[in-house]
């Protein structure tokens, strides 16, 4: 006999972010995995016993074996940082419906502000060497202020026209970076400037409160510099995810959705058009500014040209592939868009090393050493013309994915997940 289904007995219960215990458990496990990811614990390096005959498990799973590697921590850190920016764009474009191609610009504003506040001055650039608790929020606030200045445009134009207007911002930004005062902040064009580390100081003292730039010990664990940064970004990313979720489920988020779905009706229902759009631009830009500063801290080098149109488009792709308007979509989309090219590259490298067996045959079929082969992927890093290199294929894959998702699954990966979930919820019935 089945027990009674568990019912919600209060509105508090029902409005929780993770209302069921299954969801709480899964989310908890997922976050635990994220925290353990940079360490060597979950890595499978040995052949899996009993599965050795499967070529892919022959010498460890290629997707998992690099996880303890410094290079891959850097990539996952990048995912976390860009996820913050994607969450911001999702609030503006997905929730409030204001399509913006200027997200890279706001990130650039954040990065430059952070460099100006926290960077160290020399003969070529300005800098105030302020501690992180000033420059990181400062980056967000400066970007938010610029967002507020831009937002009146959104009241005048909408849809594709707004996209074009915000597109202009990216070029304005790159131009500003090349002007004389821009060079003082962002460094010489195409050279850039050094970006400060993430050390947490109270003020400008010698030894930081929390050292983020060297390997060291945290609590009882030895952590490398990369692992420290990863954990720092992870905490921030989780924090911003919760903020974004909360915004969407309360008054402000509902106002944004109302503006997105029916702007004039929303106004008649008492949702102020201008104020809502202004808030959307400001908050989205705040997220972008923070992410912009962090993404530069990851490479340790600020280059104003990096915040270009392609960067903006990448975020649109993240939203489209992940599922616009949903927080989880923004997160999955970021993971997918940043990681998939790396997976493809890593997999190709692994294939190139494969000899014999099924994987060897697959490698023979699709890889080519350069001459007389029928493979469509060149194993060289650079390639002229056909066969394309892995990097070229990645760009093609990226474009094809955007088209496929727009046509077949407008709700993105999140939509696919919902469909799969509903199928199993209803199983064995079709609905």
């Amino acid at each position, binding site marked *: 006999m089945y027990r009674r289904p568990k019912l919600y007995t209060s509105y508090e219960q029902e409005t929780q972010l993770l209302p069921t215990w299954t969801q709480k458990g899964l989310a908890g496990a997922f976050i635990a995995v994220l925290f353990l990811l940079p360490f060597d614990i979950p890595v499978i390096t040995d052949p899996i016993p009993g599965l050795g005959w499967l070529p892919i498990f022959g010498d460890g799973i290629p997707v998992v074996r690099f996880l303890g590697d410094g290079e891959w921590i850097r990539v996952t850190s990048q995912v976390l940082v860009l996820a913050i920016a994607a969450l911001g764009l999702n609030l503006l474009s997905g929730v409030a419906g204001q399509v913006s191609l200027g997200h890279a610009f706001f990130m650039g504003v954040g990065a430059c502000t952070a460099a100006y506040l926290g960077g160290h001055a020399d003969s070529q650039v300005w800098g105030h060497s302020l501690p992180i608790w000033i420059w990181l929020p400062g980056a967000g606030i400066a970007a938010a202020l610029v967002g507020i200045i831009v937002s009146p445009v959104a009241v005048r134009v909408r849809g594709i026209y707004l996209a074009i207007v915000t597109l202009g911002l990216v070029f304005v930004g790159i131009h500003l970076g090349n002007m004389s005062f821009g060079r003082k902040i962002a460094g010489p064009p195409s050279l850039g400037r050094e970006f400060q580390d993430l050390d947490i100081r109270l003020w400008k003292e010698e030894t930081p409160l929390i050292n983020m730039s060297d390997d060291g010990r945290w609590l009882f664990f030895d952590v490398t510099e990369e692992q420290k940064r990863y954990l720092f970004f992870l905490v921030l990313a989780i924090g911003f995810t919760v903020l974004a979720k909360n*915004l969407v489920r309360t*008054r*402000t988020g509902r106002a944004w959705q109302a503006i997105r779905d029916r702007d004039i009706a929303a*106004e008649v229902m008492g949702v102020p058009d201008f104020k809502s759009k202004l808030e959307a631009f400001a908050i989205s830009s705040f997220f972008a500014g923070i992410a912009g500063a962090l993404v530069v801290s990851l490479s340790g080098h600020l280059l104003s040209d990096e915040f270009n149109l392609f960067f903006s488009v990448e975020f649109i792709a993240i939203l489209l592939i992940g599922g616009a308007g949903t927080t989880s979509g923004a997160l999955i989309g970021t993971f997918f868009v940043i990681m998939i090219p790396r997976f493809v590259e890593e997999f190709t490298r692994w294939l190139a090393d494969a000899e014999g067996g099924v994987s060897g045959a697959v490698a023979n079929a699709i890889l080519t050493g350069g001459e007389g082969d029928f493979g469509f992927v060149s194993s060289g890093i650079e390639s002229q013309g056909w066969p394309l290199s892995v990097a070229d294929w990645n760009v093609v894959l990226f474009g094809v994915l955007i088209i496929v998702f727009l046509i077949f699954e407008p709700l993105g990966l999140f939509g696919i997940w919902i469909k799969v979930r509903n199928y199993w919820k209803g199983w064995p019935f079709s609905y």
Partner: protein
Amino acid sequence: MSEHLLVVDDITLRFGGVTAIDGVGFHVDEGELFSIIGPNGAGKTSIFNTLSQVYRPQEGDILWKGESIMGMRPDKVAELGIARTFQNIELFANMTVVDNLLTGRHVRMNSSWLSGALWFGPAKKEEMENRRKVEDIIDFLEIEQYRKLPVALLPYGIQKRVELGRALAMDPVLLLLDEPVAGMNQEETEDMARFILDIRRELGIAMIMVEHDMGLVMDIADRILVLDFGQKIAQGLPDDIQQNPDVIAAYLGGELTG
């Protein structure tokens, strides 16, 4: 002059060469069910749009409790307590029924984006209080089983009801109903008529109703205004309107006079 809830003082609205409303004036008292009828293109919905200040009339004045609302932003008008439903459903299609009604509560809530982002504390308290009020409306309109569904998935008649609910969520003093039973079958029309009467009796909200269903209008309206080509051709009690030769001419076509 006794204080009317709403006084529309000879407003004229033009779009270029077209005069949509031509010197129309009327008043509505508290708790009254006032109805505006007229053939297509008579300017009924335009009057609603001027009341919620989506359109700005060139001449005349609109007084709310004795004070002019001309030039106010639509959301400020909503804050005064003028709520409305639309002829073609204007719900927020991707939001659930509960979220649509909560959006109606927007003007009665005041937590900022900051407290919303933090959730715990005032924002949560306010969410819960307003959710309770929204549930009262859901209960009143008998749409309990649809509460968690996105409105785009709901049948037309239910969407109309949700839209009425969204307007009620604003705690209105005056409710503008734009063709509340358009496109509905007999049963749905009767349901809606019952809701309208209940709103008046239990909540005491004044209403202006634009409607083509003459049976409904004559049955439930207190007073009726008849428009044709933007001009007022008659105003009065339902029984008088039915006998009015100008009204009959406007609806059935009269002999050409002059």
